[in-house]
C-alpha cells in the first residue's frame, strides 16, 4: 500500500515535474498541488502523476488567460502604430507593455502620459481603441480560447482517469479480500475434511 509521501517521492524521481516560467513561484505551484493531492482518497504513484498533470492544466489556463489580454494590448499597440503616432520611437513591445500597465492601473506617470499622448495623436478614446483592438485580435483571441478549452477538456479526461484508477484499486482490494475469504474457506473445508 502506497502512502501519499511515498507516491509523490517515487513518481517525482521518475517523471520530470512541469516546468514553470521565470516569473512564476515554485512554492505557489507546490501549494496548489498539495491542496489537490490532499483530496485523494487512495494516493498511488499513478494518481499523483495524474493530479500533477491536473495542476499543470490549471497553470496553463492561467497563462492563456493572461495571454488573451496581452494579445489585445499587442493589437492596440499596432493600431496606434498604424495611426503613425510613434514612428520615431517605434517599438510595439514598449507600447504594449505601457498599455498593460495603463489598463491594470499600475502604469507610471510617464507611461500614462505617453499612452494619453498616443491616444490623442491617434484621435481615439481608450474604449474606442479597446474595441478596435478586440476586433483586430478576435481571430487570435479565439486561438487562446481554444487553448484554454483544450486544458478544460484535458482536465475532464484526467478526472475520469483518476476515478478509473481509484475504482481499479478498490476493485483490486475487494478481489484480494474475496480471494483471502475463499482461501480461508478452502482451508476451513480442508481442516474439516481432515
Amino acid at each position: 500500500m502506497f502512502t501519499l509521501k511515498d507516491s509523490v517521492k517515487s513518481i517525482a524521481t521518475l517523471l520530470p515535474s512541469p516546468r514553470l516560467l521565470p516569473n512564476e513561484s515554485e512554492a505557489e505551484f507546490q501549494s496548489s498541488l498539495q491542496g489537490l493531492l490532499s483530496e485523494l482518497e487512495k494516493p498511488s504513484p499513478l494518481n499523483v502523476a495524474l493530479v500533477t498533470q491536473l495542476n499543470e492544466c490549471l497553470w496553463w489556463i492561467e497563462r492563456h488567460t493572461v495571454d488573451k489580454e496581452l494579445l489585445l494590448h499587442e493589437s492596440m499597440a499596432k493600431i496606434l502604430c498604424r495611426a503613425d503616432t510613434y514612428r520615431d520611437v517605434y517599438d510595439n513591445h514598449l507600447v504594449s507593455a505601457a498599455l498593460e500597465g495603463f489598463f491594470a492601473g499600475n502604469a507610471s506617470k510617464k507611461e500614462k502620459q505617453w499612452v494619453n499622448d498616443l491616444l490623442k495623436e491617434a484621435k481615439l478614446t481608450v474604449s474606442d481603441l479597446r474595441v478596435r483592438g478586440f476586433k483586430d485580435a478576435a481571430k487570435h483571441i479565439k486561438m487562446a480560447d481554444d487553448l484554454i478549452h483544450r486544458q478544460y477538456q484535458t482536465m475532464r479526461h484526467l478526472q475520469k482517469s483518476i476515478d478509473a484508477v481509484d475504482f481499479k484499486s478498490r476493485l483490486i482490494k475487494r478481489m484480494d479480500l474475496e480471494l483471502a475469504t475463499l482461501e480461508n474457506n478452502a482451508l476451513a473445508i480442508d481442516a474439516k475434511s481432515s
Partner: protein
Amino acid sequence: MPSRPKTLSNRRNAQRSTGPKSDLGKLASSRNSRKHGLNIQVDFESSDVYASLKLLLSEEGFSPFMAADIATSLLHYRRVMDAHYDTYISPEPVDELMIDMSVKDSMPIFREMLSEPDDVRDMAAFFANMQRKEQRNGGPVLRRTVDRHKLIRHQRHAISRRSEAIRHP
C-alpha cells in the same frame, strides 16, 4: 556587426541561394523547419525512466501490458507539454530590423548597391513583401499563441492515448 546595407544585401542574396551542397550543410538545413519535434517518433521503451515507471505501475497492481501502455502514455504527454512550454518561452523572434525599416527611406541604399533600376525595384518589392510578412506574424504573444495552437492536436492525441491506456478493460 555588419552594416545595414550589408545586412540587407546578405538577406537578398540568401534568397537566391540554391541550398546547401555538402552533406553536413544538408543535414543542418534539414533541421531548419523543425519547431517542436513532436512529429518525430521517439522510442520511450529503451529508456531507463520507462523501465522504472513500468515497474512502479506493476507494483501498483497493473498488468505488465497495461503498465507498459500507461508508462508510454505518461512520457508521451510529458513530451507534448514540454514542447508547449518551449514554444511558450521562446517564440520565433521578432525581426526588429525588418519591422522597423522604411522601404521608401531605404531606396538610396538600394540604388547605391545595385546599378540596374529593375534590380532596385525588385529589391524594394522583396523587402516590402518580407516586411508585410513580418508584420502579419505580430508580436511575441501572438507568435507563441499561433505556434502553440498548432500543438493542440498533439495534446489531444496524447490525452486520448493516456485515457485509453488507463481505462483499458
